[in-house]
């Protein structure tokens, strides 16, 4: 599939990664337009349901990104997120969702470059994986 453009759903925390994404945008850092940002207050509020939902509806990957450990505005939300991502990474690959389709990163508010790089790196990886099977299957 030459033209296949993966779609990444990114749950980004209000305090760090959303700021970084905004900085990447306003600094004109070029990165692929394959990401849809969903701003959440904290990565610690990302319910596993949201990730499962996104993948079942055809997202090619889900990125969860928040403050570095220790920087969390709410002290430890990112630590909670990390455990949930660990769970999802055990769970979802059982059903053929490649492990790479769920990604966790810590991107601080001033790391606009890192945000752009993260997306830039994800896109070819996802292209190599091919589209999420769900796109062609009847599931829900």
């Amino acid at each position: 599939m030459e033209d296949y453009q993966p779609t990444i759903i990114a749950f980004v925390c209000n305090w760090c990664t959303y700021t970084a994404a905004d900085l990447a945008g306003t600094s004109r850092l070029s990165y692929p337009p394959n990401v849809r940002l969903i701003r959440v207050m904290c990565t610690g509020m990302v319910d596993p349901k949201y990730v499962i939902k996104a993948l079942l509806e055809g997202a090619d990957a889900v990125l969860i990104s928040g403050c570095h450990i220790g920087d969390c505005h709410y002290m430890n939300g990112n630590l909670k997120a990390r455990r949930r991502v660990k769970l999802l990474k055990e769970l979802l690959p059982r059903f053929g969702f490649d492990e790479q389709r769920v990604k966790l990163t810590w991107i601080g508010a001033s790391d606009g470059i890192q945000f752009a790089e993260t997306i830039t790196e994800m896109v070819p990886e996802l292209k190599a994986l091919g589209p999420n099977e769900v796109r062609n299957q009847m599931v829900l």
Partner: protein
Amino acid sequence: MAKIAKIEVKEQNPLNSLQGFFKTLLEQEEISAILVPQHLPMKDVVMPTLVTDPEKLNGTDPLAPVFPMNAAKVVSRLTGKPLGGSVAVVLRPCEIRAFIELVKLKQGRMEEVVLVGIDCLGAYTNVDYRRFVGDDGAEATLRFCQNVLAGKSTAVEDFDLSPACKACEYPVPENADVLIGLVGVDINQQMLVKANTPQGEALLEKLKLPEAKEPDGRKKAIDSLVAQRVEYRDKMFAETTEATSNIEKLTSYLANCVNCFNCRVACPVCYCKECVFVTDVFDHEPTQYLRWAKRKGIIKMPTDTVFFHITRLAHMSTACIGCGQCSNACPNNIPVMQLFRTVSSHTQKAFEYEPGRSVEDDPPLSIFREGEFLELTGGKE
């Protein structure tokens, strides 16, 4: 060293002796009631009963190869709030383990309960048990126990023990206050009684049972039973993994799910008052369905079945104790237990968590630490 005693078995009828034991137990001052499975008179079915009158223990049969529900749920109801007296609850290992999970989730309390666990020889599904039992429940139970302990097959005609039981590697309720041992014991002579906790010890002291020591063959018999089950389990894991290895296969696996949610109702550790999938969160607008359908041209109705099962796995797989009640409850014979146990084996391992082991172990998603799972973010915090 745990204290060990024995229940002497007379007339080669372990069931009668057990009933005698329960009577003695109930006669103890500190025991207000006993929760124990009984053959119910109206129908040949075995259900948990809460007994305060020692005379009403004649129908008890904790050895019957059936359990229509995981009794952890009723123990949770009994102990959720102060009860005003201690209850001895006679449970299978998987029920005890489920109860321990529920205690962690504040759905029950250990304070007013004495856990009496009996070595579990397995059970048939509800449907198969009805075919197995015949007219005399007690007789069927004895027949079953003698057969199993003699090493004979549990298969009858075209059916056998439920897959959950065959794959269960926890036949011995090590975390009960009082354990009644059958495996590797000549139950026509005696049954072992072992106290695993101070509470159990104190109780055992009062019962004044004759002392005993663990038969030499018991450990070996347990190991061999567990080995057998592990072998079955691993085969089941392999088959289930294969059957659900991609989303298409998983969809087929769950194709006849009708969103009845019986599995989650039957599940002892699914403790929500109301599952989120039956709340307004999933009350979609009619237009929404159309929108989804338009996207791919076709969607399966009812929707959210795969979503439901994966979400339930996310919520409960770390706590799954493998009792198999989900499969038992499914009207469309979806092998839910197999799926749960297969996935659980991974999620539980990931967090080095063994559900039902001890109330001291925190549920994996309720705790978090610095410096863990660094591999998720490229080794860095």
